[in-house]
């Protein structure tokens, strides 16, 4: 499905001394089956933007369109099933006695029959390599395991768009690799992924397109290469190397994968 934000603005606590304008006229399209990364510094509006994608936050101006239909006309439950949102530190919302029941929460809310629920739980736990955790208590898991279970809890709804807010924050390198592999796997399966992150290396690695936010406005949007080459000083190391190699290997940079860049570098050096 195609998710479109048109001129979306959001003001927190309007009309009070605490008023904050978090988003100012953001227009953005999430194309079907792509990985779109949203990058930006702290306070740039990334998380606020993410919460507009399933209307957990309602825009104070502008609109959100799902396949060209105004998202406010859809029922909340349908919208939240089609657009899955994984919050930052999602493990803080685990609550059930076992992992299995926690992951089953969302599909049960959808009113699916028990057979289908069980199937979805297993499927999404397997996708995250967490099927052996099913019978354990979510509170007794390690940080990385909790994160995987929490993401499985949203994946179990079978979303068409999955929005991940800082999913790799605080994970060890191995868990991060696994998660990036999951994102690419979902993309293979036709799910669009919106990855909110401030780790530019991981963004360069998996994102088809990058949207950079600055003070609530879109400051750049395009392929990882286009966005990062615009200001090479801020680009992640791989992108910097890739940008230097671009003359010799015009193919690289969509996305900027470490492996491809390394191969291009080797080819140029003739090693």
């Amino acid at each position, binding site marked *: 499905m195609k998710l479109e934000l048109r001129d979306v603005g959001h003001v*927190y*606590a309007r009309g*009070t001394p*605490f008023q904050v304008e978090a988003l100012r006229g953001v227009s953005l399209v999430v194309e079907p089956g792509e990985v779109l990364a949203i990058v930006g510094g702290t306070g740039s509006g990334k998380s606020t933007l993410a*919460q507009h994608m*399933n209307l*957990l936050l309602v825009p104070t101006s502008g609109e959100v369109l799902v396949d060209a239909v105004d998202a406010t006309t859809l029922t*909340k*439950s349908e919208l*939240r*099933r089609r657009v*899955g*949102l*994984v*919050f930052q530190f*999602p493990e*803080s*919302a*685990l*609550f*059930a006695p076992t992992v299995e029941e926690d992951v089953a*929460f*969302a599909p049960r*809310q*959808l009113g699916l029959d028990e057979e289908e629920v069980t199937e979805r739980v297993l499927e999404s736990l397997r996708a995250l390599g967490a099927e052996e955790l099913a019978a354990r208590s979510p*509170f007794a898991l390690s940080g990385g395991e909790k994160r995987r279970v929490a993401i499985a*809890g*949203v994946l179990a*709804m079978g979303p068409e768009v999955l929005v991940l807010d800082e999913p790799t924050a605080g994970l060890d390198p191995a868990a991060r690799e696994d998660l990036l592999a999951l994102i690419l796997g979902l993309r293979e399966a036709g799910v669009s992924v919106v990855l909110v992150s401030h780790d530019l290396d991981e963004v360069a690695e998996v994102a088809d397109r990058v949207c950079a936010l600055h003070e609530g406005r879109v400051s750049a949007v395009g392929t990882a290469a286009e966005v990062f080459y615009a200001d090479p000083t801020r680009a992640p190391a791989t992108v910097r190397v890739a940008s230097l190699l671009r003359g010799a290997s015009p193919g690289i940079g969509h996305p900027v994968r470490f492996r491809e860049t390394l191969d291009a570098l080797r080819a140029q050096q003739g090693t």
Partner: protein
Amino acid sequence: MTTRSLGQFYPVSSPVHALDPRAKIIATAIFVVGLFLIDSTAGLLFVAAALVALVAVSRIPAGTFLRLLRPVLYIVALTVLFQIFFSREGVILFEWGFLEVHSGGLRMGLFLALRILLLVSSAGLLTATTAPVALADGIEDLLSPLKRVRFPAHEVAMMMTIALRFIPTLGEEAEKIQRAQAARGADFSEGGPLRRARSFLPVLIPLTVGAFRRADELADAMESRGYRGGEGRTRYRELRYRMSDAIALALTLLVLLVGIVL
């Protein structure tokens, strides 16, 4: 963003804010006792006028202050209704079936409503004009004579400070978890009261777990910074009575005495 409600500190600078917290606590206590000694409407109205003046001096906008009172309006309304319908004093003003409204009941209802509003306003004014930390300092200091009989004044004040400090934090956390569960299809607005209460379990459980984790972390953080109770502990802000505190206390007493006499 949190909405302001009863008991929230309103940070502006005013003569009332500047008073010593101990003076304000004592004045509020005297005021509350005094309210129950006043038995004439004229006296109550006089005290109410004085409180309105005090709110004006405190630079808290009238609208904000009235919003502080909103949570108790139900209790006030209920009190008035009870008095109106169940009191049989004075002449009958209005009759409808078995319901009779008597003049005495109406008068008594309004009198009690005013008294409750004044009670809550005075407490609200105290917490609105006194920072939570100052309030806890004041309470600790006022309770410190009880230390001689082994009353843990410092610990009680510290618990109060921490509890107050964590109200907004827990509020934020609750909101975050609620949104995370809403993203998983939880609906908090459908069904009867029982179903609605049950739908809050997925919020309450992680909130409680998080609160315990936070408490552990806070205890570790305090200990690693050398906290070991109130023994020999000095303060960043020393409390000191000034002339204005004495004047404020004297004025409070004077207003109440006039109210009682009236």
